[in-house]
């Protein structure tokens, strides 16, 4: 019995083994559990990190998928668009005559651009502002559609040519290949949203300052991955909230804050491929800003100011009212871009935008209107500055009023850009004591048309027949018959002549206003027909003086008036531009009487005398200026010109080098230094200057001209030929004035206005003959 053991013993052994196994298993579990517990309790971060890693991996996978999907979608999209797209300007210029380009191959599908509504989920304030602003309505506004539709319907041109206009007004339409006959592209979203959020915020590079949308658009992206690679298309909001810095990296760039970004579209030309003629400058608000005191890039301004970019005026930070994740300290750079356009908010019923625009136009002390002086009874004596001098008025006096309008604080001209469409003018009224008109210039007629003899800040582009290009058919423009504006920092003098009636006894009031209407009445008639609402007229600035019949004595200055020295200075500037050099010098001399050590007054005299070709006295004035301010770049510049005149080459070059050192982005300084070096056969130095000038202004004629010669001298024939071709294309057509003269011959009211020195008078008609009293 002892050999096999007993069954009971075997069972007991088996039970023991089982029990031991169980115990061992339990022990192992406990150990494992403790190990787990130790790992969890010892590094919670690594567990969270693990979760985070998982999410990141998932997102990275999503990102990679998004990129793959975008590439595939884009390829498929191009396969549908390419076969029927009209490559009118060549396969290498799919978006010409515009200058816009996009990264990657071919067109980009409209769906690649996240919608404004998507952005507006978190950026509600920006969205609400943008919706009422010009950028979102850039395409759909009827004022634009009327003009571009003419181009599209033109049998000699067609929709392909609209790529010029829509590169700025509807870039998604251009980049998607939508601007072709028999287009397969859905226009709903792009037409409605114009310059949508993801057009500006997808730009990855500024190609140049040539304008016509000179930017490179990236594949739209609202996020980058952890390596900084752009993730195409929309992403879940939760991801953006997790990594706001990656969102910012995708959509924000330093250049968005620069005026060069605005220049991409707020600088335009009409290239030969559009008009089948030659390069014509359309407008360049950017260059006007560069020349203004606000850029700090121009040493030649009459006045100075702190640096203010386009964004500084047109995107001022405002407190937010709606949810806005882009706000900083409760404020956001305004996406209303307040400026001068009252027509669009008026048409669309955007009351907030309209009211803010009107307030903006009136708020900035942008213009100064000065009823500066009087000439009475045909005498030469100018009684000025008004309010500081005594004078006498009697009935039947013939009075000539000098009104000086200063562009005081606008960073560009009044009115910038398409002056042919806008209407700004001076309204001058003289009323008797009962409020009846004695004289009125610049009135609106019952049909809403402006008094044709008003002093208007407008222009008249003409075609090759000398007809006014009324419908903004810019591709037909061959010349500009008349262009009246007030450039930034400068002034104009407007003279009015009127006769005091014999009955007048009591005080008369003389008022000068600068009014503005967006748009010109006849253009509104073109858009809507004549039965349309009266579009808003905004008074930008005004001044009224009350004058006694009899003796008038000096009075307390109005706080809004400029100080006397500036009043004289502005008159001098205006007379300078109207080629009245002797009077200009006299006005600047009055400034010196009031501010003896104001160096710029002497420079101003020198400027007038240089134009007047009185170089000796110009030198005296400049020397005085440099004595007062030896480092004045403005004085040095004009001294350089005078040194050139005198043949003092070394001093000439030294002067211009000093100016360039202080103002390296001044086109004038670069140009003159380039010319000085060129004349000394210092080709290398000249080349350096003209190449720098071309970087500042790609369209500068002297750069093209001189570079073509310099490159040829250095054996760079291809580059020389390129510059020469650009010079030939951009220089003024010598035959162009013929078109202008044809127009002026048929329009005496404009012909008079086109002469800088003219008077608005009820006493003479347009041909200069005496107006007979009725």
């Amino acid at each position: 019995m002892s050999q096999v053991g007993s069954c009971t013993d075997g069972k007991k052994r088996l039970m023991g083994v089982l029990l031991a196994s169980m115990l061992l298993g339990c022990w192992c579990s406990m150990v494992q559990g403790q190990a787990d517990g130790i790992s969890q309790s010892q590094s919670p971060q690594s567990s969270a990190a693990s979760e985070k890693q998982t999410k990141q991996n998932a997102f990275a996978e999503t990102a990679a998928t998004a990129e793959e999907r975008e590439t595939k979608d884009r390829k498929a999209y191009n396969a549908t668009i390419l076969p029927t797209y009209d490559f009118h300007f060549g396969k290498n210029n799919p978006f010409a005559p515009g200058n816009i380009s996009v990264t990657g191959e071919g067109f980009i599908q409209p769906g690649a651009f996240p919608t404004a509504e998507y952005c507006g989920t978190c950026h509600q304030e920006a969205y609400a502002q943008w919706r009422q602003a010009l950028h979102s309505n850039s395409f759909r506004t009827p004022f634009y559609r009327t003009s571009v539709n003419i181009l599209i319907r033109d049998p000699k041109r067609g929709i392909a040519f609209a790529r010029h206009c829509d590169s700025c007004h509807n870039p998604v339409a251009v980049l998607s290949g939508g601007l072709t006959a028999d287009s397969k592209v859905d226009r709903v979203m792009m037409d409605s949203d114009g310059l949508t959020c993801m057009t500006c915020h997808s730009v990855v590079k500024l190609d140049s300052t040539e304008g016509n949308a000179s930017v490179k658009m990236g594949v739209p992206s609202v996020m980058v991955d952890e390596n900084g690679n752009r993730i195409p298309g929309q992403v879940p909001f939760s991801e953006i909230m997790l990594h706001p810095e990656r969102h910012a990296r995708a959509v924000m760039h330093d250049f968005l804050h620069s005026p060069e970004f605005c220049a991409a579209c707020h600088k335009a030309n009409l290239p030969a491929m559009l008009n089948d003629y030659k390069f014509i400058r359309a407008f360049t608000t950017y260059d006007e800003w560069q020349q203004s005191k606000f850029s700090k890039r121009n040493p030649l301004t009459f006045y100075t100011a702190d640096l203010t970019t386009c964004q500084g005026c047109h995107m001022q930070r405002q407190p937010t009212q709606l949810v806005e994740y882009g706000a900083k300290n409760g404020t956001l750079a305004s996406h209303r871009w307040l400026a001068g356009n009252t027509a669009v908010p008026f048409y669309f019923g955007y009351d907030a935008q309209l009211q803010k625009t009107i307030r903006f136009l009136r708020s900035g002390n942008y213009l100064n209107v000065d009823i500066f002086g009087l000439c009475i009874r045909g005498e030469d004596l100018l009684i000025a500055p008004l309010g500081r001098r005594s004078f006498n008025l009697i009935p039947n006096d013939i009075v000539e009023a000098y009104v000086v309008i200063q562009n005081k604080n606008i960073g560009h001209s009044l009115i910038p850009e398409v002056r042919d469409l806008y209407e700004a003018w001076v309204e001058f009224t003289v009323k008797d004591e009962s409020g009846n008109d004695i004289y009125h210039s610049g009135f609106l007629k019952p049909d809403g048309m402006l008094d044709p003899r008003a002093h208007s800040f407008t222009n008249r582009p003409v075609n090759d027949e000398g007809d006014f290009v009324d419908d903004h058919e810019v591709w037909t423009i061959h010349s500009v018959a008349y262009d009246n504006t007030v450039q930034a920092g400068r002034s104009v003098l407007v003279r009015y002549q009127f006769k005091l009636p014999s009955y007048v006894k009591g005080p008369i009031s003389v008022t000068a206003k600068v009014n503005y209407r967006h748009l010109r009445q006849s253009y509104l008639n073109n858009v809507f027909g004549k039965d349309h609402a009266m579009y808003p007229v905004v008074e930008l600035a005004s001044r009224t003086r009350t004058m006694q019949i009899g003796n008038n004595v000096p009075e307390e200055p109005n706080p809004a008036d400029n100080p006397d020295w500036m009043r004289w200075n502005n008159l001098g500037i205006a007379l300078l531009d109207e080629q009245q050099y002797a009077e200009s010098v006299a006005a600047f001399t009055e400034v010196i009487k009031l501010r003896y050590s104001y160096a710029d007054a002497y420079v101003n005299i020198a400027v007038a005398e240089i134009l007047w070709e009185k170089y000796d006295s110009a030198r005296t004035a400049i020397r005085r200026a440099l004595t007062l301010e030896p480092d004045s770049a403005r004085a040095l510049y004009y001294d350089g010109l005078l040194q050139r005149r005198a043949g003092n080459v070394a001093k000439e070059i030294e002067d211009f080098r000093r100016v360039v050192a202080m103002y390296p982005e001044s086109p004038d300084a670069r140009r003159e230094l380039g010319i000085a070096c060129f004349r000394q056969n210092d080709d290398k130095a000249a080349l350096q200057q003209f190449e720098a000038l071309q970087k500042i202004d790609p369209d500068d004629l002297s750069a093209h001209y001189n570079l073509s010669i310099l490159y040829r001298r250095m054996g760079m024939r291809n580059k020389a030929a390129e510059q020469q071709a650009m010079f030939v294309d951009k220089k003024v057509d010598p035959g162009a004035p013929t078109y202008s003269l044809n127009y002026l011959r048929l329009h005496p009211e404009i012909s008079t206005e086109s002469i800088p020195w003219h008077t608005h008078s009820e006493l003479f008609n347009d041909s200069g003959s005496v107006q007979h009293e009725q």
Partner: protein
Amino acid sequence: MSNRIHAVYWHFTPARWVLISAFFLAISAIACAENNCPWMNEATASDIVGVNVVGTYAAGLDKSARCTFAEESGQTGRTLQVIVENASDAHADYLLSLRTFCAIAKEPLMAVGNEAATCSILHRKTVTGERALGRVRNQVFIISLSTSIRNDPILTPGMLAMKIVTAAEQVAGNLF
């Protein structure tokens, strides 16, 4: 005066629209073309209708023209139609067309053309479509977006109201 009113009313009576439609039908074999609709392409119309559509364009002899977009699948449920007519007194014609087609209730449409309005198309008190009428200078347009599908999940009443505005913007924009 009454003759003029009669003449103008005749211009836009339902009877005349029946005749115009018959006219278009009669000449459709000659004048209908693939979609050369000058006011909207098929891709845009498809977005508005909510399904892929194909378009036909017919130019009338009386300075009117019509674009019709119907479902590509051949089903006749959803259509978008645009009619544009030149008029010597377009404002009067527009008002008449409003009275004819939107007699019951109309919503003025801001910022579309010179003037515009929308109203619903009803069939037995159910909204089966939306209409937009408007004017751009001397041209009057009538746009109809409709569905015959009961409880259409795509062209719901809300969607119809939204899409007719989009259609009006597109057409008016191209007429300017």
